[in-house]
């Protein structure tokens, strides 16, 4: 199709719109850039994602009198409930020394991945108002969701260290590795969030399935039991122990608890899952970049 530019000097022929646009240095609106360009864009707007994440984490505690105090109170109350129920009322050990600490680490860190997944999945469709007003690489939305979850995890980690100390674990050098473990887990969560965000924005129904996935993950990841103790070392047990969420829980427990010893292979699995998920998530999300504004 040709367009006529009334003001342009008559050139004896009409050119196509694309030629006219190219001649005047115009670019296609909303076009998906190359992957490297896209990543550069994401990087250059990182402050937007950080600021959005901070704002979201902040806003989640905003509508109450105690306000930001809830950032610390919430994990303390959860820890209190678990310590009370499993330390005093039920008093099981399920084949684990220091079951209370084992459980609290499991619950807090599992929550991090499961909320990254569920909030990440709806990160694009929940932010339609931003998406339909401002042009920015959409990958920033799932990324900022995971950052926000990371920010809510930080006070919980402080509470966690308190629980670990309270239950009689001595401080150890391996505690210093915890940030690395959490970082790997965040990278994995980012991959998950990117991947599911695109699926949900294309087929809304996927969002209805996410809660079942997270619940199933909870039961197979050894949040409140030791996989080895229940499923045994071979076959199924090995498969369960090497799935990503179980790997990250194992990693965090290994860093904090005396009774659990980490091997290099756990670190390798953790790194592999993180990088693999991120790579797949980024490429898959970038591929759908042009479709996100469509309601």
């Amino acid at each position, binding site marked *: 199709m040709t367009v006529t530019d009334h003001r342009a000097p008559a050139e004896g022929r009409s050119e196509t719109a694309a030629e006219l*646009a190219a001649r*005047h240095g115009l670019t296609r609106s*909303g076009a998906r850039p190359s992957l490297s360009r896209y990543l550069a864009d994401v990087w250059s707007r990182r402050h937007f994602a950080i600021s959005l994440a901070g704002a979201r984490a902040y806003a989640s505690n905003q509508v109450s009198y105690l306000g930001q105090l809830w950032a610390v109170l919430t994990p303390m109350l959860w820890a209190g409930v678990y310590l009370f129920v499993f330390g005093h009322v039920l008093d099981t050990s399920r084949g684990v020394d220091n079951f209370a600490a084992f459980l609290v680490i499991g619950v807090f860190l599992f929550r991090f991945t499961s909320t990254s997944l569920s909030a990440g999945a709806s990160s694009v469709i929940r932010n339609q108002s931003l998406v339909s007003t401002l*042009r920015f690489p959409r990958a920033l939305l799932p990324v900022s969701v995971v950052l926000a979850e990371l920010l809510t995890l930080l006070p919980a980690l402080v509470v966690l260290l308190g629980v670990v100390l309270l239950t009689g674990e001595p401080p150890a050098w391996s505690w210093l590795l915890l940030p690395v473990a959490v970082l790997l887990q965040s990278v994995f969560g980012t991959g998950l969030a990117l991947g599911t965000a695109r699926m949900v924005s294309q087929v809304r129904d996927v969002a209805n399935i996410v809660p079942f996935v997270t619940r199933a993950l909870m039961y197979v990841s050894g949040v409140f039991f030791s996989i080895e103790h229940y499923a045994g070392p071979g076959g199924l047990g090995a498969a369960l122990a090497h799935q990503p969420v179980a790997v990250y829980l194992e990693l965090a427990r290994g860093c904090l608890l005396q009774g659990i010893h980490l091997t290099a292979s756990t670190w390798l699995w953790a790194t592999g899952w993180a990088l693999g998920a991120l790579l797949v998530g980024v490429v898959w999300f970038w591929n759908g970049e042009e479709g996100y*504004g469509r*309601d």
Partner: protein
Amino acid sequence: MTEQGTERTGPSVVVDDLHVSYRTYGGRRTTEPGSGRRFTLRRHVAAVDRVHAVTGVSFVAHHGESIGVIGHNGSGKSTLLRAVAGLVPPSSGGVYAAGTPSLLGVGGVLVKELSGERNIVLGSLALGLSPTEVRERFDAIVDFAGIGDFVQLPMSAYSSGMSARLRFAISTATSPDVLLVDEALATGDAEFKQRSRERIREIVGNAGTVLLVSHSMSTIQQTCDRVLWMDRGVLRMDGPTDEVVAAYSESVAQPDQERR
């Protein structure tokens, strides 16, 4: 923000046979007469419909032009602007624009539960400013919005005019090559309308292009030298303000022949 090498005369927006359709969830139109009962199930399960909002629009806008867009409700004006901004993907056809067009819309609340200040920072960062640039321009944006210490309250506490002011201030913080204004001035008071008109003139004076959607013919006549008339997704007329506005007003006066 002007990129090096971008020409400051000539076309700034080229729209070529643009089609945009939306997908809607949770309801279907049952158009066949008398078939209402038979198709009730489809209105609850797999109730996904398509709305063709823009069907085959072409035009070229130039640097330094301010163009009005008029038409009935639902004629596709907002959709056209969103497509120019690259916010909704065209289902076919092409949209080319200089730089990154900045859209200023009615529904475009940034993040409701956050304070005006936070929204200013977020909006400016999303527009591509660096944190230092945001810090430099922050006061100017707050001044221009002119909503006093309400900037510290969450935007959910704002009146519609107040949030319109804030959004306008954010969107025009950078001097975009192409500014798209969708009824954003409608809820402002006289003083704000005056100021925003000046700001628009400034942008046009800097060889920017402004596309302005409005239902107020006086706003269109005061701000625009060219008008696009959208009608049910097609571009019905494109020409000098006086002619198009006159034709539009005439068609509004005889609604029977014009509405479906």
